[in-house]
């Protein structure tokens, strides 16, 4: 079922939680709402669910599920499944009763027979790999298992849309990774339309077909994860989607100078600030005529596929973070206290006046 939000806004008292928002979500899409806390992403999700109502004035907004206008439909009649960050399981009911709840509260005319309910609950429990836990109580399960129960409970009523509010936020990193992959799987298999909220950019980029980046109650950008990462539309999106290193200085005759550091840039004279991703910094033992950025290594963390290296210099206000491949790390024999030269491969600039990014690539 597709979702269309038309001019949806929300005030809490005098503060505007959401500026008027338009959003189209295709049938079968998995969309992530990404933003820092207070960006309005959870409010938006709750409005889609019907747990909050959007502003009526100045202009009333509309919410459509497919062709159905659900703006004034109560949450219980919207045919949504909602998964809460803290699971919100019914603690006094067994896992089985939790999953069966939505089916047993249906009006008698629509309610499936006892056998059908049983069959459907066990099918769902099998799907979330918890059929052996049917008689347990929520308190006897781990966080990851509880969240799977809550997902099975939401899916039991065959909702038109599945809404998830920071579904993996309360879980530890490993379980989170596992559940993410599993949700992606489930989504591909059953092809329901789902919207989830997260403040974790990695989660949003990994899981979503499209990501809606939000800040201060506004949508900053809606794109596929790839486009979003490659072509952020503004500074906020760029900064929010990963680690950023800053280089501030004065440009004169095509050279940006900052203390004893300088870099050849193709920019007009004046103040400039360049933004670089950690993987866009190459480390070398020698400067080049175009790039003279002396740095000292202050910390090394060889975790994961790359080595994270922290760099400091007296011309830098804040330390830089560079990621180096293990091969390069070994070749350069990096160690703490070592003095090297940084060479930007690629950088971006978001001038205040124009919202558009300026990108320059250097084959350093």
């Amino acid at each position, binding site marked *: 079922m597709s979702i269309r939000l038309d001019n949806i806004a929300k005030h809490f008292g005098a503060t505007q939680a959401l500026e008027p928002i338009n959003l189209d979500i295709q049938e079968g899409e998995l969309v992530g709402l990404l933003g820092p806390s207070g960006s309005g992403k959870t409010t938006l999700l709750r409005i889609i*669910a019907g*747990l909050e109502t959007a502003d009526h004035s100045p202009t009333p907004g509309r919410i459509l599920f497919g062709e159905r206008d659900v703006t004034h439909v*109560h*949450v*219980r*009649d919207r045919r*949504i*499944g*909602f998964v*809460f960050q*803290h699971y*919100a*399981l*019914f*603690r*006094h*009911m067994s896992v089985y009763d939790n999953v069966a*709840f*939505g089916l047993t*509260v*249906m009006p008698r005319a629509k309610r499936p027979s006892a056998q059908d309910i049983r069959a459907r609950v066990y099918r769902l429990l099998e799907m979330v790999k918890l059929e052996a836990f049917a008689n347990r*109580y929520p*308190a*006897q399960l781990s966080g990851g298992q509880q969240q799977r129960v*809550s997902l099975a*409970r*939401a899916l*039991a*009523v065959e909702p038109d849309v599945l809404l998830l509010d920071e579904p993996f936020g309360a879980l530890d990193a490993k379980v989170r990774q596992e559940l993410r992959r599993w949700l992606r799987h489930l989504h591909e298999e059953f092809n329901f339309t789902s919207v989830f909220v997260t403040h974790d950019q990695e989660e949003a980029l990994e899981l979503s077909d499209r990501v809606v980046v939000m800040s201060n109650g506004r949508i900053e950008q809606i794109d596929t994860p790839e486009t979003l990462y490659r072509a952020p539309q503004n500074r906020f999106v760029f900064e929010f989607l990963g680690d950023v290193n800053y280089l501030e200085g004065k440009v004169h005759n095509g050279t940006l100078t900052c203390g004893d550091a300088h870099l050849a840039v193709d920019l007009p004279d004046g103040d400039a600030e360049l933004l670089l991703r950690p993987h866009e910094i190459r480390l070398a033992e020698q400067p080049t005529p175009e790039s003279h950025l002396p740095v000292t290594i202050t910390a090394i963390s060889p975790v994961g596929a790359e080595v994270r290296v922290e760099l400091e210099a007296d011309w830098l206000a804040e330390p830089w973070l560079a990621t180096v491949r293990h091969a390069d790390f070994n070749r350069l024999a990096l160690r703490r206290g070592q003095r090297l030269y940084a060479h930007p491969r690629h950088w971006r600039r978001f001038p205040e006046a124009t919202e558009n990014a300026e990108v320059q690539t250097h084959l350093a």
Partner: protein
Amino acid sequence: MSYFALRHSGSARVLPGFGLSMGISVLFISLVLLLPITGLFGQLAGLSLAEYWAIITEGRVVASYMVTIGAAAVAALVNAVFGLLLAWVLVRYDFTGKRLLDALMDLPFALPTAVAGITLATLYASSGWMGGWLESLGFQVAYTWVGIALAMAFTSIPFVVRTVQPVLEDMPAEVDEAAMSLGATDGVAFRRVIMPHLWPALVTGTGLAFVRSLGEFGAIIFIAGNMPYETEITALMIFVKLQEYDYAGASAIASVVLFVSLALLLAINVWQGRFIRRLHGGKG
């Protein structure tokens, strides 16, 4: 030597002060609770079993049990309903005067019971505001068991409100929302999701209110009318015995109240313990 020192420090508690605080607690409980109760049983020692039985089954005393238990049961049930409602209002909604209402909830605890008793008696006597009005409708409250129940309800309502309130506060609104998102109507959500959470607290609060009502004296005697076999409460029977310098008789009746109260409190505790174990992952 060092082996023993290690052993010793290994078995010691990390939190300091256990010995001292436990000692003071035991002493305090002994002085304030156990000593008077022992005294009570000491008084009973002068009675033979037959005498004891005769005192506690005397017609007028038995009638007072009926009045007390009946009125306390009604008061407890009324409090269960209205206490739950009050707790609900105090937790779930925001309104001006909420803090004031919350503070008023403790008034029956703070007010001397005799003050409450006199106030209720004047209010509900046939010459009082409420009494006059109710009488014109054909209800008599003062000097009937309804008045007794009313006084009991007044003094024990905080027990229900104050036990249900924190449990309700602990219950996240998300649980409600989850039930509604699954299609439950308000009534179904309340019955199947909210009430099961509140049951233990509500039963405990109601039980405490009931037990408190069994022993209430000051608030009741002014409004009860104290007619033998009709509106005499057990606490009054104890008082009457004391005025006749019949200490053993007073102790005998008091011991009945004590046993009933203790048995009830114990039963509630055991039942609640089982329920809570289930919520926290036990097999109970």
